[in-house]
């Protein structure tokens, strides 16, 4: 991991098109401003962790029979 120290209003580039700036520092909270093209996803790491955890949860489920859902043509197919 590359660690860089920045002061308020300073910024960092990640690649050619992503710029991250320190917008505000209040107590132990740092507000980051992120400029990135729409094709680059920016999200909190908690989202990543939540998906990982949900995947693990889903992998453990052991349905003996899958649910029957309404709204389908009820037939043998």
């Amino acid at each position, binding site marked *: 991991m590359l660690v860089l120290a920045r002061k308020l209003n300073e910024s960092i580039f990640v690649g050619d098109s992503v710029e991250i700036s320190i917008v505000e520092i209040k107590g132990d909270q740092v507000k980051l401003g992120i400029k990135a093209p729409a094709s680059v996803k920016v999200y909190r790491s908690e*989202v990543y962790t939540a*998906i990982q955890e949900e995947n693990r949860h*889903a992998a453990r489920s052991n349905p003996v029979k899958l649910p*029957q859902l309404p*709204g389908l043509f009820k037939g043998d197919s």
Partner: protein
Amino acid sequence: MKIETKPFGLIEIDERQVMSFPQGILGFEQHQQWALLDSTQPPFYWLQSLSDPSLAFVLISPSYFRPDYDPDLSAEDRAVLGTGEVDDILQFAIVTIPEDQNNMTANLQGPILINRKLHRGKQGIQTDPRWKVRHRVVDELASLGVR
């Protein structure tokens, strides 16, 4: 080809059902070969790991209960899946099915994306706040007016 599966035991599949996930799936990055299987109960499918017979996910097509679902693909999604026609990309949500199946939930924040022409797949990450990791399928179906 024959494969060992969690839901069906040993079965015969067509190699066209095999999907390559170069990055695996979140939490299961080492599993890079998967088979997409029909289930005995539409609209569900199974995504079966080819490296571990006991690892398989139940999938559902999100449009079934959320017709407004429209995940967008990031540059990284396209780098893995390939750019092709929009129709080439299939989207599925991983379903978690607890003891009480009415509490079944689907993950719309981390859709399984598959390019059915190139047989490549990836788990995407959606940043739109409408999409969560646990959507209660039965409740959302009910609010669609489907009985």
